């Protein structure tokens, strides 16, 4: 079956790939398959596998969405060098559909991870910490905010 790809008006080549069809499904499928791989390679219980997936998802998405700044190519002459990927998508507009989706995914992962580990204590604390940090980083009020100057420009 076919989908139509309409050309976007986003000039930032680092973020415009997120506006094409199929991204959301790919994201969900990649998370699901990584759970299957962790489950089959490490042989742990499903709950521990979900916790591992949730925490590694936290590390990967925090690093690439909220820590790394700029774009991986030099064509745009560095106009986005002070902005993280999260601040660049949708041209900086807040509360768009893409942003809402990306905020919901860690929450759903948190619910699945905590449910399948029966809310036991050490992992529950780690999972909650991860989801709180991720969701707070995605608030509209945190746009371009650098707490205590961490990760600010020179």
């Amino acid at each position: 079956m076919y989908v139509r790809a309409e050309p976007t008006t986003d000039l930032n080549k680092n973020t415009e790939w997120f506006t094409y069809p199929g991204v959301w499904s790919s994201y969900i499928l990649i998370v699901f398959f990584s759970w299957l791989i962790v489950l089959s390679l490490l042989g742990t219980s499903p709950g521990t596998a979900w916790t591992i997936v949730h925490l590694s998802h936290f590390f990967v998405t925090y690093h690439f969405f909220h820590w790394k700044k700029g774009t991986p190519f030099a064509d745009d002459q560095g106009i986005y060098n002070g902005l993280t990927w999260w601040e660049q998508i949708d041209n900086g507009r807040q509360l768009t559909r893409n942003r809402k989706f990306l905020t919901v995914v860690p929450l759903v992962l948190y619910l699945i991870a905590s449910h399948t580990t029966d809310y036991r204590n050490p992992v529950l604390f780690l999972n909650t910490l991860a989801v709180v940090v991720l969701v707070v980083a995605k608030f509209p009020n945190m746009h371009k905010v650098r707490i205590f100057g961490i990760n600010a420009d020179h």
Partner: protein
Amino acid sequence: MITIPYLTALTTYFSYGLLFAFGQFRDFFRKIFDWWQASNLQGYAPICLGLEDFYIRRLYLRIQDCFGRPIASAPDAWFDVVERYSNDCNKTLKRTEKKSRCLNLGSYNYLGFAAADEYCTPRVIDSLNKFSASTCSTRVEGGTTALHEELEECVANFVGKPAAVVFGMGYVTNSAILPVIIGKGGLIISDSLNHNSIVNGARGSGATIRVFQHNTPPHLEKVLREQIAEGQPRTHRPWKKIIVVVEGIYSMEGELCKLPEIVAICKKYKAYIYLDEAHSIGAVGKTGRGVCELLGVDTGDVDIMMGTFTKSFGSCGGYIAGSKELIQYLKYTCPAHLYATSISPPAAQQIISSIKVILGDDGSSRGAQKLARIRENSNFFRSELQKMGFEVLGDNDSPVMPIMLYNPAKIPAFSRECLKQNVAVVTVAFPATPLLLARARICISASHTKEDLLKALEVISQVGDLVGIKYFPAEPKKQLQPGKETIKLE
């Protein structure tokens, strides 16, 4: 409008994710190794900032042999490609002495002027002997020869405008003119797929830039209405000037611009139009005068017409055509005219001679033959490719046809397999096109014969089966029907 099979979209995202992840792993280990070994570069500043060259190092360099292939002859319909080899997985490429004769499907050689021509080349050599290879001076100081005056008049007549000015380089024409004709307090509305030179010129001008969805006149109207109602960004004063920038043929899509509707909208809201005909001048239209002739738009309605001579005329340089007052103003203010070396005299003579051939002023009908041939070749090639099941973009009559590849692994596969069978194609990937939509771009020329096209079709069909890019069902073989065939897609 591009139609992607859903599964292909998913696998393309997954492939790029995998490539990105591997690149990040390698960078991570590289950082550890570099920290471990002391480097002898103390006191030197880094050339690149942070991760700026990640794409080049980890994605582009892996398939570097598909881009920038050196050639050893003029880029005619058949040319010599120098073979290269690499000992370190494509990080460095070394040239060999061997050359292979390949069919050229990548050069912008629309009318066949890229190689020696029986009318143009003797005259070019004459002017090389008479005027030397370069004027070594700017236009205002000593660089205006009789050839330059004749060239500007010739171009103005050809395009259908009162006056024209010519520059030595096509990219510079856009990036040096836009800052001069508009400044802070003005508004530039440009198509989302405009060329990098226009984007650079617009950024350099200091005007506010807004983008409208590619080739969608209703969205252009919506953006215009919104911007005119809001006014300048903070003061909300009315805009000093509004310029809408569009291209004649978009080189990555092969689509023609919807010029009549856009002109109607701009007249209604009193905005200026800037038309960049880099690929369409000389290649489309009954007498080769570009997209205005093809779509029936009066050239008086388009305020500034820009074009380049690299594609259809076999030369170099760019021009701006407009009213006499506009060209006079540009000659006083444009830095490309005042400070840059003027266009080289043999190149100018090549343009004058090729325009004469196109118009038939050389006494033969070769110009009309070339125009008819490129139209037939493009329509034939495009319809055959669509019948085989490839996804080909572009409108009828356009000599540029991109074949969609999508997956990043198919880019080097298609390119290398075609080269093995002596067909040289150009593949285009990420920064020039959106991430998902990698493509192989075929440019048809008037010097391609029917046998060349049939051989190309055979090779592309074989390679397409091997690589798996026939995304649409192929048409069943039926007898050749005369006239226009309508292609039914899913």
